[in-house]
């Protein structure tokens, strides 16, 4: 019987964790989204922030009116070409770590303007990197909360000060680690086909 290593060495009400887990916990429980409604999806975003759905339960109810204080950009609405450069600029103004949620059909791929809209950017992921796609036209607040939880999953998978596998020093920010959590999916944890060529044939215009 060996001596307990750490148990009963401290007084009560004393928690032990790792720095990584503590930082991730703090980050995931205080995601401040940017007030960024550009079309009708913003109504659902507001509903998600209001009392009935109450995004504040997850620490994400403090909508900031400036990108300098925001962690999450919920692109809620149709992205026109004129707005696209502004969105990129706002994204660049946000401090790291930053996350982007594409809310609704228009931001995912152009939505109803996909074929014939001369004015609509065909997906906000052509402008900024998107972490979570929330489909719907518009998505219900439940879906938005689900997307928020997936962002929290993503934050939970972050690693800080991680050594490389071959022992050649610490990793830089943004580098992939082997034990990173898989990209979240709405049906649970599903491995995303990260290096797979995306299917684009269904989007092609067939010449007559």
């Amino acid at each position, binding site marked *: 019987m060996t001596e307990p290593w750490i148990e009963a060495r401290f007084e009560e009400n004393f928690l032990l964790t790792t720095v990584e887990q503590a930082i991730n916990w703090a980050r995931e429980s205080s995601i401040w989204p940017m007030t960024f409604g550009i079309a009708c999806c913003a109504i659902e975003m507001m509903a998600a922030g209001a009392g009935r759905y109450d995004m504040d339960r997850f620490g994400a109810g403090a909508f900031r009116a400036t990108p300098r204080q925001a962690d999450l950009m919920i692109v809620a609405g149709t992205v026109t*070409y004129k707005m696209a450069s502004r969105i990129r600029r706002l994204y660049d103004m946000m401090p790291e770590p930053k996350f982007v949620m594409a809310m609704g059909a228009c931001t995912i791929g152009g939505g109803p303007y996909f074929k014939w809209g*001369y004015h609509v*950017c065909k997906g906000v992921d052509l402008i900024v990197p998107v972490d979570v796609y929330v489909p719907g036209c518009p998505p219900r607040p439940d879906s938005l909360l689900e997307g928020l939880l997936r962002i929290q999953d993503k934050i939970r998978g972050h690693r800080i000060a991680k050594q490389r596998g071959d022992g050649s020093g610490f990793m830089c920010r943004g580098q992939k680690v082997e034990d990173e959590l898989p990209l979240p999916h709405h049906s649970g944890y599903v491995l995303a086909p990260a290096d797979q060529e995306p299917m684009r044939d269904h989007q092609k215009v067939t010449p007559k």
Partner: protein
Amino acid sequence: MPVPQRVVDALCGRWAGLAVSEFRGQARVVVPREVLFDVLTSLRNEHGFDMLVDVTCVDYLRYRGAAQRFGLVYLLASTSTNDRITLRVMLDDPDPAVVSAVPIWEGANWLEREVWDMFGIRFEGHPDLRRLLMPEEFAAHPLRKDYPLQGRGERHNFPVLARREA
């Protein structure tokens, strides 16, 4: 809302070549392009049409019986007498241009910018004729009838931006 008959009579007595019609109690006047600025000035200063409601345009390309391509429409209102009048200028294709109405109504500024953006009608003397709705690098005028409906800016023409490239 009565027809401003005295206004129409005054206009027709002063300028030749005005075509007047009436629809549901409102007067519509087709004005030649050369006298447009004078007619607008007269309506504002002498007949009390102090409000420019809208400047918009119609593209009559391949329209039955249309002799000229663009119909530029001015909607005027008088806030004192509640009269309304519609002016229309017919413009044709290479280089459609009219004199800007910004010296008469300051509010024509953005309305004319929108018409320039969507239809490519040049307003001479406009203080700031830039695109209003479309980005600056956009080259076409999308509300013209010969603008293609399909095949520009499709998603598969662009690379999707990933986190490591941003």
